[in-house]
């Protein structure tokens, strides 16, 4: 197992050097991860605190020496908010992607391997999931269960697995017919062993591809939901910042320093996710490189 991991890391490193897009994506992620970890040291102020200077309330300040990106209409430091906003974005992205990979891969593996009734039930379930509109579902569920960041993650995990499950299933259908699976069956391996030890590693790259795409989707969705005002009010995310700016009419006042930075950050992190996805897709389908 450790050997396999070491190999994967080595290959990833080699691969990143060859693929500029994936490298850019990985660098952006590393950059944001470092910021998320060091947020308290990088952010100059508490993002929730209304700033005062010598007793004077600092609202709607333009970018300057003291407040790098100015302040909001409630006098909060925008730069600090931006820095702390990395945390919920990554949290949502990683957890949603994790659940999507786990659920989607499991459903795909079981449906593809067992076929028959199991397949029918699981795939019809997937069809149902496909029939539900994504953002309205998240909004309704969050409205129902309460605006909490974990509820948003759960709502996304409940629907985003559908693509993964379908694609994994079709892949399993081809892998399970390969001779090595037959050999395993003949030598008496259990279904469990065949599914998880023999088939799963063969479709794992595909799971990761869909995981990295799900990461982008999840971050984007969290931002959308927050922007629409259904997000977690206690967590400052980039979507929340946009919503805040929108409500206090930052655009009419020309306060670009308020809403452009979170927008760029959202774009960068989603883009990074798709770059990495595209990169791993090239591992799976080397022919893509020619175009």
């Amino acid at each position, binding site marked *: 197992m450790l*050997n396999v991991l070491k190999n994967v890391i080595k290959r990833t490193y080699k691969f990143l050097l060859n693929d500029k897009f994936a490298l850019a994506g990985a660098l952006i992620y590393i950059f944001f991860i470092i910021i998320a970890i060091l947020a308290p040291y990088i952010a100059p102020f508490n993002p929730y605190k209304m700033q005062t200077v010598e007793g004077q309330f600092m609202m709607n300040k333009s970018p300057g020496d003291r407040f790098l990106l100015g302040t909001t209409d409630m006098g909060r430091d925008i730069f600090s908010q931006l820095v702390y906003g990395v945390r919920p974005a990554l949290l949502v992205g990683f957890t949603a992607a994790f659940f999507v990979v786990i659920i989607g891969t499991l459903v795909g593996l079981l449906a593809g391997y067992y076929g028959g009734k199991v397949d029918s039930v699981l795939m019809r379930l997937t069809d149902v999931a496909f029939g539900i509109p994504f953002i309205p579902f998240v909004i309704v569920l969050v409205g129902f269960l309460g605006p909490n960041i974990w509820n948003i993650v759960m709502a996304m995990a409940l629907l985003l697995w559908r693509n993964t499950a379908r694609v994994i299933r079709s892949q399993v259908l081809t892998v399970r017919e390969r001779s*090595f699976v037959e*050999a395993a069956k*003949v*030598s*008496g391996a259990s279904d469990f062993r065949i599914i998880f030890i*023999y088939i799963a*590693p*063969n479709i794992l790259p595909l799971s990761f591809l869909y995981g990295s795409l799900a990461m982008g989707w999840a971050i984007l969705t969290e931002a959308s939901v927050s922007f629409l005002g259904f997000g977690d009010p206690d967590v400052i995310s980039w979507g929340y910042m946009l919503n805040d700016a929108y409500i206090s009419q930052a655009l009419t006042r020309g306060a670009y320093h308020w809403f452009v930075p979170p927008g760029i950050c959202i774009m960068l992190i989603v883009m990074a996710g798709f770059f990495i996805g595209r990169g791993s897709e090239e591992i799976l389908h080397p022919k893509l490189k020619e175009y």
Partner: protein
Amino acid sequence: MSLLEVDNLNINYETNKGIRKAVDGISFNLDESQSLGLVGESGCGKSTAVKGIIGVQPKNAFIPEGKIRYKGENILDYSENKMNDLRWSEISFVPQAAMDSLNPVYTVKNQFLEVLKSKGNMEKKKAVKRAKNLFKKVGLSEGLLNYYPHQFSGGMKQRAIIALALALKPGLIITDEPVTALDVIVQHQILREVKELRKEFNISLIMITHDISVIAKTCEYIAVMYAGKIVEKGPANKILKEPLHPYTMGLENSFPDITKPDKELISIPGVPPDLINPPSGCRFADRCPFAEDICYSESPELKKIDEDHYSACIHTENLQKLRDQSGEVETWRRAI
């Protein structure tokens, strides 16, 4: 007592057109450390027969009749669990295109250890040692164990597979087209190694192939199959030199001879009969240049012609004449 006794084995496939009798009453014996080659054209039931022996036939196949005795016990009565214990540790099977049986995402070493640990109950240290040993035996260097299957050439994969089949010192190895996808030089090396390993470990062998030269090199006995039946069986040198059945004669003529490069190759015209409704007489009659009227109505039994040499044909005398005639192209044109 024979190691393996196959007695009147029938295997049928249920298809949506009807029941296809893929294997129709074949019998043969195999003694310890003996080797048997099964020959015949594609679709004559060779693979089905051996898959039936180790119990891995497809789901739509069933065995209505027959006995398969391994070391005296009828293994057709075995439960799936008991069969699992038998496979690999007693009877190894190297299927067609066996090289694909290696899992692409694990190193070869991993796959060896898995077998040795789970089926051979070995500890890791001992298993590694054994894997290295096996690799050396089939002519691969130890270092190659850490490689992934795709880093191997076809010949190396085949060797690795043979080593895997030997891993638990089985009494019998069944190989289905073991060297077909390889070039002649590698074929030669692998066959030689198989021969030596067999001698060393005292292993019996059943080898399926349609390449007669492969059989000639490795097997002591030959059974020729046609349309689900054994039409001729006997010692290899006898069958190769003095074939009794017209089908065997035809089969041997259809291979190129390096000493006579100008010789026109003779192929047997026609195709094997459909096994859903096989003809009532001799199944080869339609394609046989020596067929008589009786051949179309009565199915000949496998008869002892010579010592240890059996044939299922009405022609039992003046066979040299038939052999000479079968070497000419005109003879076979006559049949259609």
